C-alpha cells in the first residue's frame, strides 16, 4: 500500500487544520507522525482540491485522485499526462518527474507506482524500466536518479526489476548454462551461448565482461582487443567503451590486479568526478564494495545500465547487508522477485529472517569428497571431487575440496590450460603455502575479478584466504558470498550465519543428508563455525586445517594452538607442515613471545620462499622498535627477519633495523665481520647462515657494521663472504664465482686510479631498481606481450565526463586516442617513469644528491674558501648587509678615513658580487631542468630517437629480462648524464671562471681608483694570490662533475687482466685448490666486461673439473692457454694432469654419453644439475654464440684437456656502469 511521505502529509495536515473533515474510505493509508492524520486526510484533500491544485506536486495530485476515490482510469490519466508532458519537455524533465515520484512516495508504494508507470505503454521502455538494451549507447544513456536512502533504493530497484521478471528468469537460466559451458572448457560454445543471451535478454556490462574473458581464454589477447575495438566503433566516447577498455586491460595476461588497481586509483584520483561515481567505477572495475552508506549509490548508477546489471548489483548489495547482519523488508525487496527462480534469492531470504523452508527447494551438496578429505584419504577425496565436478559442474565447492586434496596429497600442481583446472591448481598452490604462493595468490585475486560474470566460480575462489584471514569482517563477507552464490546448500558455509541460526541450520542439513556416514563433514562444520572445540586427539593430518581455522575463529589460538602447530609440523605433508609453521607464528605473536616468533619466521622463510608472503609479519611486527628485540640480538634470525620484512616494505625504519640488527648480531657473537661466522658456523642453522651471508650481508648492510671501516674493506669482506658461500652452498657456486670476479675486477681497476669523491654526483640505482621491480616490471611484461601480439589502444577520460557523472548533464564522453598507441605509450611511460626516478627520486635520484651534496652542500663554502682564508670576504649580518672587513681595515692603519671607507666599500662590493656569481651563475645551472628551473643543465632528454632506439633494442633482444632492461636503460641514462656533466664542466670553465676573473680585475680597478696602490700592496697581493686559488677551486669543483663509474664503465680489460681475474676468482671459490697454474697468452685484445664474466665461468668450470675428477692430490699442474685469433675468437685450452687410474673404460663411456647428450641438445636440462654437469654448462655458454667451440677428452693416460672458444665483442654496443650491473644482478 502506498502513502505520502511523513513530511508532506504533515504539511498538508497543517494546511488543513481549519478544514471540515469529510467521510470516505481511503484505499491508501498515509504514514505520518500524527495518529489522526489519516482521518484528517479527506479534509486535506478537499482543501487542496479546492484551493491548491495548481500548486500541488504531481505525487500529491496523484494521491488526491486516489484518495477522492476517483477512478483508477483517472489516476492513470493523470500519471500518464504528467509523465508524457515531462517526456515532451525533454529527457531532463522526464528524469526530474521520475525523481519526484521516487522522492514523494513511500517505498511500500513503489511496486504499485512502478506498475502504474509500466502499464502506460509509452513509458514502458528504457530508460525508466530498463527492459532490453539493444545497443551499447543505451547503457548509461541517462543521468542517475536522485539519491535515496538504501532501503528506499532497494525497494525501488526491486520494483523496477519486478517489471523485468521474464527477462531475468531467462537470463538466470541461460547464464547458468553459459557458466557450465565455461567450466567444461567449451569456450567456443560459451561464446555462442553469450550471444544467445544478448539476443534474448539484451546487452549489458555483464555481457561485456563475460565476452572479454571468454575471448581472452579462447583466442587470446588479440581477439578480446578486437572486440573492444568494435565496441568502440559502435559507441565511441561512451562509458561502456571505457569500461570495456579497462576490463580488457585487466584481462591481459601480464596485468596483475594490484598494478591494475594502483593505476586505476591514480587515474580516478586525477579526475574531477563525483566521489559516488568513483566508488561505482571502483566496484565495477576492482570489485571493491563500498561502505554501507554508499551502497545505494551503486544501485543508483546501475539503474542506468540494464536489467541484468541492476539485478546482479542488487544481489551484491543484499549479500553485503547480510554479512553485516542488517535487516531488510523481505516482503518488499525479495518476495516480488522470487519467480526469477534464482537460488541466491531463496538463500538471501533465509538470511534476512525467512525460515529454513526457504531452502527446501535447493539441492544439498554431495559431501562424499569432503568426507574423505576430513578422514584423511586425500587421493580418494581428489578423485571423488573430480567425479562430482563432472556430474554437477555447478558445485564449485568441489573445486576447493579438490584443490585441498591435491595440495595435501602433494599431487602434481603443474599449470593446466583449462580455466577451471588452472584455477584449482592456483588454489592448491595457495593452499599448500608453497614457493608459488605469492604468484598464485596474485593470480587468484585477478581471476576472482575477471571471472565475475561466472558467479559461483568467482565467489568460491574468493574463499582462498579463509584459513588465514584474521579480519573478521572480511571473513564474514566471503562466507556469506559462498553461502549465497554456491548453488547447492553447503553445511561448511555455516559460519556465514548468525550464531543463533547455526545449530538449527546444521540440524536441518543433517536431516536432509539423512546419513551418518557424513558425520565428519558436519563435525567439521561445527568446528569451523566455532560451535564445537576441536578434538586435539585426532591426528593433525586429518583435522589440522579445520582446527587451525576454528582456533582463529574462536580466538583460542593462544590456548590450544601450539600443540596443534607442533603436530602439524610433524606431518609428512608439506602443506600441513607449512600451515603448522604459520599457526606456531600466530600462537607466539598472540602470546607476546616476539623473539621466538622471529625465530619461527626466519627459520621457515629461509626454507620456504612462499611463506614470506603468508606470515602476517608486517601487521604483527612491522612497527616495533628494534630495541624490543635487544635480548635476541645474538640470534641470526633477527637480521634475517628484518631483511625479509624489508623485502616486503622498503621503509627507512626497516632499513635501519636491518642494518643495525646485523651489526648487533655480529657484536653479540664476538665477530667483527660476517665472514668470521665460519669459525662458529655449527652453532647456527645452515639454511639461515646461507641466507644471512648471501642476502642480508649486502654492501649497504655491511656499511653499518662497525668492524668494516672503509669502502675497500666492504669489497674485501664481500669477497670473503662469497668464498665462504661457495664452500657451504656448492649448489649456487657459480653465482658466487661471478660476484667474486666482479669485485676482483673492480678492485684491480680501482687500484692505480685516482680516487674520485663518489658522493657528489650519485644515483642510487639499487634503490631505483627496487622501485622499478615494484612499479614497472609488470608494465615491462605487458609491453612485451602487447608488442608481440601487435595490439593496443589508448583511452583517456576527458573532462566532459564530469558533467554527466555529477548529474549536470546527460552526455558522457571518454576520449579515444589511437588504436595503435597503447604499446608505444606504455614504453614511453616506463622510460619517463624511470627517468623521473633517476632524476627526481627524493631519496635516491640525481637531484637529491645534487641538492644535498652540491647546491646546498659544500659548493658555496668551497668556492668562498680561498677568499675566506685570505679574509677577503665577510658574511651578511641580520639585515642582510655585508659586515665590514675588520681584518683588513685593522691592518691598513696608514690609510685615511676616506681611503678606509673606500677599501671597506670595495671589499663589501666584492663579497656581494662573488656570492652573486655563486647564486646566479653556478647554482641555477646545477639543477634538473624543469619549467621552474629552466637554466638547469641536467636534462637527460629522451628524444624520439631515443625511444626508437630503446624500442629497437627491446625488439632485437626479445629474451631479455627486466633486469637486463634496467641495466641497459641505466647505462643509457648514464651516457646521457655524461653529456650533461660535460656541459656543466664546460659552463664552469667558460662562464664561471671568466666571470670570477672579471670580478677580480674589477676589484683591483676599484681599489686603485680610491687608494694609491702602494698603500695597499699586501691587500692586492692577497687578492692576486686568492685569484689563483679560486681558479684552482673552480677546477676542483669541476672534478665533482665527473663520475667514477663513468671512467670505470668505459674501461675495457686486457686479455691478461681477464685471465688473472678469472683464475683468482675461481681459486677463491675453490678453497684449498693449490694447483700450480701456468698461463700462456697468444694475441692481445681489449675486451668488454661481459667477456670477463664468461671467461670466469669457463675457467671456474674447468678448474672445478680438475678438483673433482683429476685424482691428483699433490703437485697438480694446470696449463691455461688463451689465444685470440684473427677470426676474433678467444680459444681457451685447459690442460691438467690426471691420475693414471682415471682414464678407464667407464670414464670414456661417460664422456661419450655426455657428448651424445650435448649433440642431442639435452645440455640445458643437464646443466641445471650438480655433478657431471660441467660440460653441459660449458656447452650452454658456447651455445649463446655464433661460433661454438667445445672439445674435451684425454690427450693421453695422464692428461685431460678441455677446449672452449667464444667470439669476442671488442667494442661493446652497450656499456653498463658497474653500479647498474650490480643493481641488475
Amino acid at each position, binding site marked *: 500500500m502506498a502513502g505520502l511521505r511523513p513530511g508532506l502529509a504533515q504539511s498538508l495536515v497543517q494546511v488543513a487544520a481549519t478544514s471540515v473533515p469529510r467521510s470516505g474510505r481511503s484505499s491508501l493509508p498515509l504514514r505520518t507522525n500524527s495518529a489522526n492524520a489519516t482521518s484528517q486526510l479527506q479534509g486535506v484533500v478537499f482543501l487542496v482540491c479546492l484551493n491548491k491544485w495548481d500548486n500541488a506536486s504531481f505525487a500529491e495530485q496523484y494521491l488526491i485522485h486516489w484518495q477522492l476515490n476517483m477512478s483508477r482510469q483517472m489516476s492513470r490519466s493523470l500519471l500518464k499526462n504528467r509523465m508524457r508532458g515531462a517526456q515532451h519537455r525533454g529527457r531532463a524533465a522526464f528524469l526530474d518527474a521520475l525523481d519526484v515520484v521516487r522522492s514523494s512516495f513511500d517505498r511500500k508504494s513503489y511496486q504499485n507506482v512502478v506498475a502504474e508507470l509500466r502499464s502506460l505503454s509509452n513509458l514502458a521502455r528504457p530508460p525508466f524500466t530498463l527492459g532490453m538494451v539493444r545497443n551499447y549507447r543505451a547503457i548509461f544513456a541517462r543521468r542517475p536518479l536522485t539519491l535515496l536512502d538504501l532501503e528506499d533504493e532497494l525497494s525501488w530497484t526491486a520494483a523496477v526489476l519486478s517489471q523485468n521478471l521474464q527477462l531475468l528468469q531467462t537470463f538466470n537460466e541461460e547464464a547458468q548454462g553459459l557458466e557450465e559451458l565455461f567450466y567444461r572448457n567449451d569456450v567456443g560454445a560459451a561464446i555462442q551461448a553469450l550471444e544467445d543471451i544478448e539476443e534474448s535478454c539484451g546487452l549489458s556490462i555483464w555481457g561485456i565482461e563475460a565476452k572479454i574473458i571468454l575471448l581472452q581464454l579462447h583466442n587470446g589477447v588479440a581477439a578480446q582487443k578486437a572486440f573492444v575495438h568494435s565496441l568502440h566503433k559502435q559507441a565511441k566516447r561512451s562509458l561502456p567503451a571505457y569500461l570495456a577498455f579497462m576490463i580488457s586491460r585487466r584481462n591481459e595476461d601480464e596485468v596483475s590486479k594490484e598494478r591494475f588497481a594502483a593505476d586505476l586509483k591514480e587515474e580516478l584520483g586525477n579526475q574531477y568526478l563525483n566521489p559516488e561515481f568513483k566508488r561505482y567505477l571502483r566496484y565495477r572495475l576492482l570489485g571493491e564494495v563500498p561502505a554501507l552508506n554508499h551502497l545505494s549509490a551503486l544501485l543508483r548508477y546501475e539503474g542506468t545500465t540494464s536489467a541484468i546489471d541492476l539485478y546482479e548489483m542488487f544481489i551484491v548489495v543484499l549479500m553485503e547487508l547480510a554479512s553485516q547482519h542488517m535487516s531488510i523488508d523481505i516482503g518488499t525487496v525479495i518476495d516480488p522477485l522470487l519467480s526469477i527462480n534464482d537460488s541466491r534469492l531463496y538463500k538471501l531470504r533465509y538470511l534476512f529472517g525467512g525460515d529454513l523452508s526457504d531452502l527446501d527447494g535447493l539441492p544439498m551438496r554431495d559431501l562424499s569428497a569432503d568426507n574423505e578429505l576430513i578422514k584423511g584419504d586425500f587421493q580418494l577425496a581428489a578423485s571423488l571431487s573430480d567425479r562430482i565436478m563432472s556430474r554437477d559442474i555447478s558445485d564449485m565447492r568441489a573445486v576447493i575440496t579438490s584443490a585441498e586434496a591435491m595440495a595435501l596429497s602433494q599431487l602434481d600442481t603443474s599449470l593446466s590450460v583449462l580455466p577451471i583446472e588452472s584455477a584449482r591448481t592456483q588454489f592448491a598452490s595457495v593452499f599448500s603455502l608453497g614457493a608459488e604462493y605469492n604468484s598464485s595468490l596474485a593470480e587468484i585475486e585477478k581471476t576472482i575479478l575477471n571471472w565475475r560474470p561466472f558467479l559461483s566460480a568467482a565467489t568460491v575462489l574468493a574463499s582462498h584466504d579463509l584459513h588465514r584471514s584474521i579480519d573478521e569482517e572480511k571473513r564474514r563477507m566471503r562466507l556469506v558470498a559462498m553461502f549465497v552464490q554456491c548453488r547447492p546448500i553447503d553445511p561448511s558455509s555455516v559460519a556465514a550465519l548468525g550464531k543463533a541460526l547455526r545449530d538449527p541450520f546444521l540440524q536441518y542439513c543433517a536431516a536432509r543428508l539423512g546419513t551418518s556416514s557424513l558425520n565428519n563433514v558436519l563435525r567439521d562444520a561445527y568446528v569451523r563455525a566455532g560451535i564445537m572445540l576441536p578434538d586435539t586427539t585426532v591426528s593433525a593430518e586429518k583435522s589440522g586445517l579445520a582446527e587451525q581455522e576454528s582456533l582463529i575463529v574462536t580466538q583460542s589460538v593462544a590456548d590450544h594452538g601450539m600443540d596443534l602447530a607442533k603436530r602439524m609440523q610433524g606431518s609428512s605433508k608439506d602443506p600441513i607442515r607449512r600451515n603448522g609453521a604459520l599457526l606456531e607464528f600466530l600462537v607466539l605473536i598472540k602470546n607476546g613471545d616476539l623473539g621466538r616468533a622471529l625465530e619461527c619466521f626466519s627459520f621457515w622463510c629461509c626454507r620456504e620462499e612462499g611463506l614470506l608472503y603468508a606470515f602476517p609479519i608486517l601487521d604483527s611486527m612491522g612497527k616495533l622498535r628494534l630495541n624490543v628485540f635487544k635480548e635476541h640480538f645474538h640470534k641470526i634470525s633477527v637480521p634475517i627477519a628484518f631483511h625479509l620484512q624489508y623485502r616486503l616494505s622498503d621503509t*627507512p625504519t626497516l632499513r635501519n633495523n636491518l642494518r*643495525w640488527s646485523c651489526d648487533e648480531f655480529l657484536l653479540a657473537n664476538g665477530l667483527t665481520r660476517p665472514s668470521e661466522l665460519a669459525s662458529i658456523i655449527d652453532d647456527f642453522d645452515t639454511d639461515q647462515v646461507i641466507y644471512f651471508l648471501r642476502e642480508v650481508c649486502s654492501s649497504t648492510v655491511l656499511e*653499518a657494521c662497525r668492524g668494516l671501516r672503509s*669502502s675497500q674493506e*666492504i669489497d674485501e669482506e664481500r669477497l670473503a663472504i662469497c668464498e665462504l658461500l661457495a664452500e657451504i652452498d656448492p649448489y649456487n657456486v657459480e653465482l658466487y664465482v661471478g660476484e667474486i670476479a666482479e669485485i676482483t675486477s673492480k678492485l684491480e681497476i680501482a687500484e692505480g686510479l685516482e680516487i674520485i669523491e663518489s658522493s657528489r654526483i650519485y644515483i642510487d640505482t639499487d634503490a631505483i631498481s627496487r622501485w622499478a621491480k615494484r612499479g614497472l616490471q609488470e608494465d615491462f611484461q605487458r609491453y612485451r606481450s602487447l608488442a608481440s601480439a601487435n595490439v593496443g589502444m589508448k583511452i583517456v577520460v576527458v573532462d566532459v565526463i564530469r558533467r554527466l557523472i555529477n548529474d549536470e548533464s546527460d552526455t558522457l564522453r571518454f576520449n579515444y586516442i589511437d588504436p595503435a598507441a597503447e604499446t608505444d605509450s606504455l614504453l614511453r611511460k616506463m622510460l619517463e617513469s624511470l627517468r*623521473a626516478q633517476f632524476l627526481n627520486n*627524493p631519496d635516491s635520484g640525481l637531484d637529491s644528491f645534487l641538492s*644535498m651534496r652540491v647546491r646546498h652542500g659544500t659548493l658555496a663554502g668551497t668556492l668562498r674558501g680561498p677568499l675566506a682564508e685570505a679574509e677577503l670576504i665577510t658574511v651578511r649580518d*641580520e639585515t642582510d648587509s655585508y659586515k665590514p672587513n675588520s681584518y683588513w681595515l685593522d691592518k691598513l692603519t696608514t690609510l685615511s678615513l676616506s681611503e678606509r671607507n673606500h677599501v671597506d666599500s670595495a671589499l663589501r662590493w666584492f663579497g656581494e658580487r662573488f656570492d652573486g656569481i655563486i647564486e646566479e651563475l653556478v647554482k641555477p645551472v646545477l639543477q634538473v631542468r624543469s619549467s621552474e628551473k629552466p637554466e638547469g643543465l641536467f636534462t637527460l632528454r629522451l628524444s624520439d630517437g631515443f625511444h626508437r632506439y630503446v624500442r629497437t633494442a627491446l625488439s632485437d633482444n626479445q629474451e631479455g629480462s627486466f633486469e637486463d632492461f634496467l641495466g641497459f636503460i641505466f647505462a643509457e641514462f648514464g651516457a646521457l648524464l655524461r653529456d650533461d656533466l660535460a656541459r656543466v664542466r664546460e659552463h664552469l670553465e667558460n662562464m664561471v671562471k671568466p666571470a670570477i676573473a672579471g670580478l677580480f680585475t674589477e676589484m683591483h680597478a676599484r681599489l686603485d681608483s680610491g687608494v694609491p696602490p702602494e698603500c695597499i700592496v699586501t691587500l692586492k697581493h692577497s687578492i692576486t694570490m686568492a685569484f689563483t686559488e679560486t681558479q684552482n677551486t673552480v677546477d676542483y669543483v669541476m672534478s665533482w662533475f665527473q663520475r667514477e663509474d663513468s671512467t670505470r664503465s668505459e674501461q675495457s680489460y686486457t686479455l691478461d687482466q681477464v685471465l688473472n681475474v678469472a683464475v683468482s676468482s675461481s681459486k677463491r671459490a675453490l678453497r684449498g685448490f693449490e694447483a700450480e697454474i701456468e698461463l700462456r697468452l697468444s694475441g692481445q685484445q681489449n675486451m668488454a666486461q661481459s667477456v670477463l664474466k664468461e671467461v670466469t665461468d669457463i675457467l671456474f668450470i674447468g678448474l672445478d673439473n680438475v678438483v673433482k675428477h683429476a685424482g691428483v692430490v699433490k703437485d697438480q699442474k694446470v696449463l691455461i692457454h688463451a689465444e685470440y685469433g684473427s677470426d676474433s675468437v678467444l680459444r681457451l685450452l685447459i690442460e691438467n694432469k690426471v691420475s693414471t687410474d682415471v682414464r678407464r673404460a667407464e670414464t670414456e663411456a661417460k664422456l661419450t654419453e655426455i657428448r651424445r647428450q650435448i649433440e642431442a641438445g639435452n645440455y640445458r636440462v643437464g646443466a641445471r644439475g650438480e655433478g657431471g654437469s660441467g660440460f653441459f654448462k660449458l656447452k650452454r655458454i658456447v651455445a649463446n654464440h655464433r661460433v661454438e667451440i667445445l672439445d674435451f677428452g684425454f690427450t693421453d693416460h695422464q692428461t685431460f684437456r678441455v677446449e672452449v672458444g667464444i667470439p669476442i665483442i671488442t667494442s661493446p654496443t652497450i656499456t653498463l656502469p658497474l653500479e647498474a650491473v650490480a643493481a641488475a644482478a
Partner: protein
Amino acid sequence: MKKILIVEDDNFKAGLLISFLQSRTSGAAIFRVGSVASGKNSIRTEAFDLIVLDMSLPAYDIDSREPGGTPQVFGGRELLAYIDFLEVTAPVIIVTQFERFGSGGENTDINALGDTLGMEFPLNYGGIVHFSSSSDRWMTDLEDAIVNVKE
C-alpha cells in the same frame, strides 16, 4: 657543555661550527667526524653533552684513499635514529644548509622536517638550524637552540 660532537663532512662548514662552538662554550672539548660510520662509532664509544649533525653525509670519512661509500642523503636522520636506538640521552641539533628537502612534489621544508624529527625523537631532538656560508644568522639560531637544549 663539556663534550661536543660535530658530524660534518664539509671542512669549511665544520671549521665555522668549531670556531663558533669554541667561542660560545668555553672549555668544551669539541670532536669532529665526517661520516655516518664515524659518527656512529663516536656515539657508541663516547658520551657527549651535545651532538651537532649535518643532514647529508657520506658513509665513510672521505680522504685520498676513501671515496666515501654510499652517500646518505638523510644520514643525519639515521644517526638521530641510531642515538635513539642506543638510548643515548645527548641532545642533538641538526645544522643543515638546506631550506627544502627532497624534490618534485615530495619536498618538505626545514621546519616541517624539524617537526617530524621532533615528534619521532622527542628525547634527543634539540632543533634544526639553517646554515649559510655567506650569512651569520645561523649563529644566532644555533645559540638559541643550545640555550633551549640547556633549559
